[in-house]
């Protein structure tokens, strides 16, 4: 059974069909990339899978369970985690606390015990902190754990979001442009992080503009264009698909020819 199944997903914003009958499935343990020109509907697709938007039609299944009508926090409880293209950091909290919030679902929360500061709460806090520090070490932010998150540079915040998402111990991790705005060194670090995550058995779906990163890490690539699936297959096959070249370069080349 595929881990993620998207069937006929459609949504329109004021008459504009942002996604039009998109279907695909992602197998467990796969690194699956979604690419496409700007405005193709990549982030919209992520927001539909994550539950931030409601689909007008179609279905999203995770490990066989229908997610379509669930709220974002309910989808998280089913094993879905994500990062954001435009960062969503808890800026008033410390770096390590950002990751500890990622452990929310694993933490036992009983208001009475928490108000009274019972030993079980202190134990829970210690456990969350230990796990968060491990994850920060994994993304290379261990030394900055106690700083306010607002102190970190952009590339580090990208990795902080990955650590926070991993803290939820997801089955499926959605990465929205993990390398956007990162320099080549940082991109390579992200590359290594994605490979390690996949090696640990977490299925990864990523939206990314950096084609070299996509070709290096992905098992399969889905190409979206104007809200529809244009191509789907292994990186080498997609790269040489004439329709993909048309969508990315052809039109641009033609426009340039016209302008010139």
């Amino acid at each position, binding site marked *: 059974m595929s881990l993620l199944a998207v069937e006929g997903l459609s949504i329109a914003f004021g008459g504009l069909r942002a996604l039009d009958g998109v279907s695909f499935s992602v197998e467990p343990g796969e690194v699956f990339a979604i690419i496409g020109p700007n405005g193709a509907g990549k982030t919209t697709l992520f927001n539909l899978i994550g539950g931030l938007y409601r689909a007008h039609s179609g279905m999203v299944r995770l490990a066989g369970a229908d997610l379509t009508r669930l709220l974002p926090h309910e989808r998280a409880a089913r094993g879905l985690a994500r990062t954001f293209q435009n960062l969503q950091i808890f800026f008033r*909290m410390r770096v390590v606390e950002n990751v500890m919030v990622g452990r929310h679902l694993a933490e036992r929360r009983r208001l009475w015990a*928490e108000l009274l500061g019972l030993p079980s709460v*202190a134990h829970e806090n210690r456990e969350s902190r230990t796990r968060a520090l491990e994850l920060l070490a994994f993304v290379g932010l261990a030394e900055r754990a106690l700083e306010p998150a607002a102190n970190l540079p952009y590339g580090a915040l990208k990795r902080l979001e990955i650590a926070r998402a991993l803290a939820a111990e997801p089955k499926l991790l959605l990465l929205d442009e993990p390398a956007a705005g990162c320099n080549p060194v940082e991109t390579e670090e992200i590359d290594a992080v994605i490979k390690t995550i996949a090696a640990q058995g977490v299925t990864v779906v990523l939206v990314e503009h950096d084609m070299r990163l996509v070709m290096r890490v992905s098992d399969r690539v889905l190409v979206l264009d104007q809200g529809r699936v244009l191509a789907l297959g292994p990186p080498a096959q997609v790269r040489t698909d004439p329709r993909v070249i048309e969508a990315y370069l052809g039109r641009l080349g033609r426009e340039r020819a016209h302008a010139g």
Partner: protein
Amino acid sequence: MGANGRRKLALLAALLAVLVALPWLFPSAFHLRVAALVWINAIAALGLALLMGLAGQVSLGHAGFMGIGAYATALGPKHLGLDPLLSLLGGIVAAGLLALLVGRPILRLKGHYLAVATLGLGILVHLVIVSEVPITGGPDGVQLPRLELLGWRLAGPGTWYAITGASLLLAVWLALNLEDSATGRALRALHDSEIAAAVVGVDVARHKLLVFVVAAVYAAFAGGLFALFNRFVTPDVAGFLRSIELVTMVVIGGMGSIAGAVVGAALLTVLPQALTLFHEYEHAVLGLLIILFMVFLRQGIVPGLAALVRGRFRSPA
């Protein structure tokens, strides 16, 4: 014990030291009464600080919950012959239930809309208290009998100083514990990004409701204490001005800070007393001081001063 645990203990120890030292420095009955008022206001401000500072939600009608606590404590013995302390407990439960009931629809609102909705709630409670004259005594207020506990009459400024001070210590301890817990982290998280909190599994609506109820319970407890201490309650306790005062205490003390709520409550309770020497300009001077505090310590007194002190240590002038 972690860094958070040590910080918690240090804050509680500092508050305890202040509580013990003040009666030695200012032993007069008047000073003790003012101090007891400070502790009561600080409890209400503390609840609001959890709502505003921790979770980033606003309530402009919080005195309404204070009014419910105060009037329940006053009216229980008068009309139902209940024990005042039992009535206080009833008031706390009633305020919590009202917050639970009203909170669900209004906490969906954000920013200005939430502010106006909570404002309406406060005005509604005030209106009921003013107009239900046969039950509440209306604008004239209502008198309370002297509180007796196990045959011991609780009277005198010293006794009430101790009761309110111990209550504040308890309220601060509970708030500090909540801040340093999974629920506290979830509340701080949704303050910064509701979307990011939701996608890691935080039920944002439920957590907002929870902290709203906690804040209402704090306010109702403070209101009930005030009724017992003052032995006379008027609708002012639930009035709009009181709500604004509470918000000002939280903002001026420093929104994200539990110590700030106590400092803000102290300032806004003591200053009007101290400023009486300005006679008719009293309110003008108070307003001016609030503006100056906001201009020069924008983050609030406690975080603002903390930042100043840290800056001083980093670069000794």
